[in-house]
């Protein structure tokens, strides 16, 4: 008798549970489906655009993706064998200049802000706010600044490679500062405490513990910053990257120079078919460099990521 009653009770409980868990009659399930479809559509638009641009450039530029492109100087007479050696060397020099300028500057600024600055002071907060704003300033503004202060004005460097490097450095400085601060902040306080408790000075603690632990983050930030700098055209046009240079830059502080994006810009504005093809080939080279740099950044980040 009791067992029969138990069976009925169990069955009833199971039925109730089943009814409660059943989701088939819930209203508005289509909303979820629509939402998902919209999201998929968005990502599709983004990817298709990117792939279309890349493929278009690739197939247009393929015929001129040869050794002449690297070996020869730009020429408007021998269009079929014209190269962009001066632009490649210009970009290499520009990037070296940016790296040696912006890394010490940005890392030092980040150390100051993260380790020494008193965040209760109004001017520190003002600086922090402005660094974030600077990251969003259009690059042409930096170009005008570079023209007024670096090429002419106080520094008076003239239209040389390092003027371009300095201008691009200003442009990517916020990126370096922000990523370095992030890296420094992720070093746990217990490591600093341990070092201080041994009698290390604050300076030694930063130099021997905090900075070495932040190197992966700093390097990732540096490569991302350089990737941004390498593609910039507008500020370079203002500070002297000439659109037509048939010789490699003489040095950091003399002679006219050009760069990959400026050269691409110059070719793309020409009406002849050969120059359009050349521009596309240049884009492929530039994108190849960018992909390599970004992959390097991701690789470094993954290889050195530490879990504390």
């Amino acid at each position, binding site marked *: 008798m009791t067992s029969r009653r138990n069976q009925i009770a169990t069955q009833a409980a199971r039925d109730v549970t089943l009814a409660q868990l059943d989701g088939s009659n819930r209203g508005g399930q289509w909303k979820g489906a629509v939402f998902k479809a919209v999201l998929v559509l968005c990502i599709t638009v983004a990817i298709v655009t990117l792939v279309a641009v890349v493929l278009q450039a690739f197939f247009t530029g393929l015929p001129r993706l040869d050794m002449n492109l690297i070996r020869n100087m730009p020429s408007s007479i021998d269009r079929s064998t014209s190269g962009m050696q001066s632009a490649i060397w210009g970009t290499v020099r520009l990037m070296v200049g940016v790296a040696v300028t912006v890394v010490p500057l940005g890392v030092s600024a980040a150390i100051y802000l993260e380790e020494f600055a008193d965040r209760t002071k109004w001017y520190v907060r003002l600086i922090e706010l402005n660094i974030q704003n600077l990251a969003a300033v259009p690059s042409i503004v930096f170009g005008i600044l570079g023209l007024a202060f670096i090429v002419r004005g106080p520094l008076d460097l003239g239209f040389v490679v390092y003027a371009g490097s300095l201008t691009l450095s200003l442009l990517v400085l916020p990126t370096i500062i922000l990523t370095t601060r992030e890296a420094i902040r992720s070093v746990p306080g*217990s*490591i*600093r*405490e*341990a070092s*201080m*408790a*041994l*009698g*290390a000075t604050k300076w030694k603690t930063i130099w021997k513990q905090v900075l070495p632990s932040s190197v992966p983050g700093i390097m990732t930030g540096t490569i991302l910053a350089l990737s941004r700098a390498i593609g910039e055209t507008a500020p370079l046009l203002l500070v002297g990257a000439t659109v037509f240079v048939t010789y490699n830059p003489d040095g950091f502080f003399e002679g006219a120079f050009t760069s990959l994006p400026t050269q691409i810009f110059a070719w793309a504005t020409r009406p002849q078919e050969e120059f359009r093809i050349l521009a596309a080939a240049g884009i492929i080279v530039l994108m190849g460099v960018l992909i390599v740099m970004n992959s390097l950044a991701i690789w470094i980040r993954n290889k050195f990521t530490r879990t504390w």
Partner: protein
Amino acid sequence: MSAVTTPDPQGDIVSTPSTTHADPRSGLPDAPSGVMETVGLNVYYGGFHAVHDVDLAFGRNEITALIGPSGCGKSTVLRCLNRMNDLIPAARVEGSVNYHGIDIYGPKVDPIEVRRRIGMVFQKPNPFPKSIYDNIAYGPRVIGMQVDNMDDHVERCLRQAALWDEVKDKLKESGYSLSGGQQQRLCIARTIATAPDVILMDEPCSALDPIATSAIEDLMTDLREDYTIIIVTHNMQQAARVSDRTAFFTARPDETTGNRTGLLVEYDKTSQIFENPRDQRTEDYISGRFG
């Protein structure tokens, strides 16, 4: 708080009855010799009065335990002893902490020098992200200590911390490759590498399992021969097992703000505190009626 009220897991491992001193030292003087002492120590964090009027003397080659419920300021007091509280911007210390009769908060005292003589081991093992060898060598190197042979020095420190046999074949491996208990012994070895006079330990076993805890406790007893040790612990059995003297702190809520200010209730030989406490609050805490 829970570490105090719940039965302690170590009770199962260590057979010593929890409320008696495992190794009562016969020669323990009635008053501590006073290698360090605090006089009228008050600590504030901003407007918050964290510790009220603590007078304590720590004896040479003794282990002094600071016990009490959470928030009673025992860790704060410990961190005052080597000026680690300086690293907290809002912290303010009043009164004096004398080390060999010199106030370490005096105007001419360099906190860096203080920390060279008074080392510290933290709650959570915090080895540097370097090799085991470099973890030990770091301290002597950064303070410019004269070491005849760094290899020997590293070995000596690891031996003193009872870690040498376990790591002698992998000195180049990262400190993080060790287990938690080994990491904590590495941190102790790192602390003694700079030849301090006093070692402060802030709940050094709270992140460790009972076996690792027992290894650290044995180590503390060995280290007592050469160093003065001051330990904060949540674990009353631990205080009873290893310490020579015990200071009991409690927290008193402020009548107006409700903020809890820590104060010293009773300080005596460990055997006295655990067997015959004079203060009712100590007895309540020891016997588990309050925590």
